[in-house]
C-alpha cells in the first residue's frame, strides 16, 4: 500500500483588505500591553497595567515577577 496525498478541492483565495493587517497590528499591540509591558514603552503607568492583569499573565504563561 502506498500513501498518497488526499485529493483536495481547489478553492479560490479570499481577498484580505490591507485594513485587516492594520487591525492585526493593533491586536498585537493590545496583546503586548496586556501581557508583556514591564516599563519598556510606558514609563509611568506600566506598573498599573502589570498589576491589574497580573493573574492573567501568570495563567497565560507569560514571564512575570
Amino acid at each position: 500500500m502506498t500513501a498518497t496525498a488526499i485529493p483536495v478541492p481547489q478553492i479560490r483565495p479570499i481577498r484580505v483588505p490591507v485594513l485587516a493587517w492594520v487591525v492585526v497590528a493593533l491586536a498585537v499591540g493590545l496583546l503586548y500591553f496586556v501581557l508583556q509591558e514591564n516599563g519598556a514603552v510606558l514609563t509611568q503607568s506600566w506598573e498599573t497595567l502589570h498589576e491589574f492583569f497580573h493573574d492573567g499573565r501568570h495563567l497565560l504563561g507569560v514571564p512575570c515577577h
Partner: protein
Amino acid sequence: MELTYSVVIKRALVAAVAAGICMALYAFFVVEPTIDDAIELEEATAQVASGDHGHEDEPLFTRSQQVGGGVLATVLFAVSVSVVFGTVYATVRHRIPAVSDFTRALWLATVAFGVTALFPMLKYPANPPAVGDPDTVNERTVQYVLLVAFGIVAAVLLCKFSGWLRTRVDFDRRIVALVAAAVLVYGGALLLFPASPDSIAPEVPAGLIWRFRIQSLGGLAMLWTVLGLGFGWLMDRVTVRETEGTPAPV
C-alpha cells in the same frame, strides 16, 4: 457567493468570545486557587525575609481586583488572538490542503497552539506568583518574545519548505523530511536559546509549581480547542451551505 474577509473575521470573533468565556471560567474556578496558594506562600516568605519585593508594600490592586483583571486579560487575549488567527486563516485558507473549512481551522489552530503555547512552555515554562525575580522580568520577557517569534517564523519556513518539496519528492518522503526538519529546528532552538536567568527558591514546593504549569498549559490548550472547533464549525456552516446548490464534483 464569494467568501469575503468579513465573513471569516466575524466567525473568528464569535468563536473567540466563546473561548474567552470558557477561559475566564477556567481561570476563576481552576487556576485562582493555585495562585492564592502561591501568593500565601509568597507573603509568608516575604515576612520572614522582609526584603524589598514588589508585592507586599501597598499593593496597587486588591486581590479581587486582580482576579477581575485576570479574567479580563483572558478575554482580551482570546479576542486579540482571534483577530490574528482569522486574518491569517483568510490569507492562507486556499493553501491549506484539507477537505473542509472545519479541518482547515483545526489544522491552523493546532499549529498555532503548538508554536505559541506548547513550544515556549517547553523552554520557559509558566510559573505561579512567588517564583519570578522582578529584577529579571525584562530579560525573561525578551527571551520569551524572541522564542515565540522564532517559532512562528520557523513554522512559516517549514510551510515554504513543504511547498518546495511537493514538486520534487513523493508524499512519503516529503512528510519524513518535514518531520525531521521540524524536530531539528524546534529541538535545536530549545537547546540553543539561553536558559531563564531565574532559579526557583527552594521554599516553593515543586508540586505547587507543576500544578500551576499544567493548569496554564491546559488553559491554553482549551482556549485553542474552543477557538478552533468553534471557528471551524461556524465556517463549515457557511461553506457547506454555499456548495449545496452546486452539483457534486465528479
